């Protein structure tokens, strides 16, 4: 049974229910918190995301996506203060402050060379900043990338870094091993802890929409699948904050829309997401909060609507309009 098959009437019902639920969730979130989503899904947007919903429904029908919604507590999970790093004379990051909350999607945008990826590398411990504090989930974040990974900081890379000669399944199991050895709960689906690595991997792979051969070496996958599998691997590690570095670049429109739906759904289930992305319509469409970097400094932050109106941002992207 592949994703293309026609569903049973029950599956169709569940799908419809899910779609309604999602629409509801988005609007409720909008009213629920002060600075939340000013983005109201207008009919044109909805039409654009129709394929996503369709595909998500398919995944649910296959038992992929968790559908049970829980009450999600919103609190600050990440707080970065005064993060500074320089390479030679270049200040790649210069006093960056940022915070992220549970069950929200925070976006980091900025022109080329603004320091976005460097920021991620500092957070995940691949780079040591010159200065600055990072507090994560209540305690100060320092130590090796591995320790941070075990504390629940998951990430993907700008160019997907799968373990190419290992099978897709092994890649995912690799993530699951972390989750178990660090005794982490799956924020977005607590039930996952109770099933075997293998089953868990299969479920998460299907959840992110991977339809290929799980036994194939990961290096042989087409590019879009590399991204989805990398995301699934990060999810297998049971992160509480997921950092995605340009998750949609190199994907075609359909895949990108899948991504949007999936991220939104994960975030609704309680996962915090920090996102670097170039595709502005995507960022504006899904982020709750956006931080704009330029020359390593935060030049603006706010809701998508605020960012779109911000003069400084427009200038950073388009140059001075004089």
């Amino acid at each position: 049974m592949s994703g293309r098959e026609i569903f049973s009437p029950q599956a169709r019902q569940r799908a419809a229910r899910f779609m309604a639920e999602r629409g509801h969730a988005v609007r409720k979130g909008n009213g629920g918190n002060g600075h939340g989503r000013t983005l109201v899904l207008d009919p044109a947007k909805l039409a654009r995301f129709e394929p996503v919903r369709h595909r998500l429904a398919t995944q649910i029908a296959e038992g992929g996506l968790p559908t049970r919604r829980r009450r999600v507590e919103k609190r600050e999970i990440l707080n970065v203060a005064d993060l500074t790093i320089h390479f030679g004379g270049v200040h790649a990051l210069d006093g960056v402050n940022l915070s992220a909350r549970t069950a929200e999607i925070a976006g980091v945008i900025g022109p080329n060379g603004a320091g976005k990826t460097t920021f991620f590398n500092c957070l995940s411990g691949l780079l040591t900043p010159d200065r600055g504090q990072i507090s994560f989930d209540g305690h100060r974040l320092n130590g090796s990338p591995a320790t941070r990974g075990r504390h629940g900081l998951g990430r993907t890379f700008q160019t997907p870094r799968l373990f190419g000669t290992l099978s897709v399944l092994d890649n995912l199991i690799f993530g699951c091993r972390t989750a178990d050895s660090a005794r982490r709960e799956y924020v977005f689906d607590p039930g996952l802890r109770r099933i075997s690595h293998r089953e868990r991997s299969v479920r998460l792979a299907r959840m992110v929409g991977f339809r290929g051969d799980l036994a194939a070496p990961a290096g042989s996958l087409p590019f879009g699948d590399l991204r989805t599998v990398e995301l699934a691997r990060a999810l297998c590690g049971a992160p509480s904050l997921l950092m995605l570095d340009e998750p949609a670049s190199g994907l075609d429109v359909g895949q990108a829309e899948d991504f949007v739906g999936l991220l939104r759904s994960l975030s609704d289930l309680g996962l915090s997401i920090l996102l670097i992305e170039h595709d502005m319509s995507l960022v504006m469409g899904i982020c709750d909060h956006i931080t704009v970097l330029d020359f390593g400094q935060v030049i603006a932050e706010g809701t998508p609507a605020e960012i779109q109106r911000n003069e400084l941002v427009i200038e950073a992207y388009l140059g001075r309009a004089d």
Partner: protein
Amino acid sequence: MTKLIQTLIIGLEYGCVYSLIAMGMVLVYRTTGVLNIAHGGIGVLAGFIAWDLNTLRGWPYFPAIGAGILVAVAAGLLFERFIVRRLAAPALATVATLALFLLLQGLVFVVPWWGNTWGQVFNSPFANKQVAIPGADYSVSWDQLILFGNVLLFFAGLYFILRRTRVGLAMRAVSDDPTAARLMGIRQKLVAPVVWGLAFGLSGLTTMLLAPILLLDNTSLTAFTLKALTVTFVGGLISLPLTVLGAITLSMLEVSTQLYLPNVKGLSDAWPFLILIVVLVARFARGTKALEDTAVAPA
């Protein structure tokens, strides 16, 4: 006083040898990304050919060593053309130089008339000629003076080539930024043979200069090469002046421990390792911030 002069002269002598070898390796590494492990081996080949021509066939000394160096240069060109160019990755080419190193070390035994003995005497015409140093009970041999002179000449020549000639500038451009060099119209196919020829020739020259001081055998350069390898590390495998500085420092330390602290067994031989540790600590204390390949500094 005598001891001091002795230290300086012998230290300088070995420093010259280390830096000659190290510079040859840095040159290749910087322009092609290959660590030329065969550097010592090539010198052995050149040395034995020169010895063969001079001692066995009765050629005069200078044409013989000239021929030896020419063979080394030719070997460099052939190695580049038929092996390095076929191997896309510098890492594989590094392994190829390792294979070449083994091959050359063994070659001495394979040529029947070169003899299976360890070490051949290959004296220069200036053997046993010495110059006394005024005011000290010590004299410098002509061979040592020739070594100094040659090294100075070589440095001057290299300086001239790298600063003033088209091909030298192209070599520096390639080592600074291969992609930008291509955009300037510099053809790697023209630069690489020059580099390999130069490096192999340099190795040959080093042997010629060393042979009168030591015996010529299949490992005459190897021990030096290994030490020089640690010295290149001091320059981060990159900087020529730093490499020379490292070489001189190492040799001075070695010689002075041997002369002043003869009782501390093994200290003089431990220096490469100790220097290495100091450099490592300095390099990493200052912080290469990147833990891994992901961390690309912004352009």
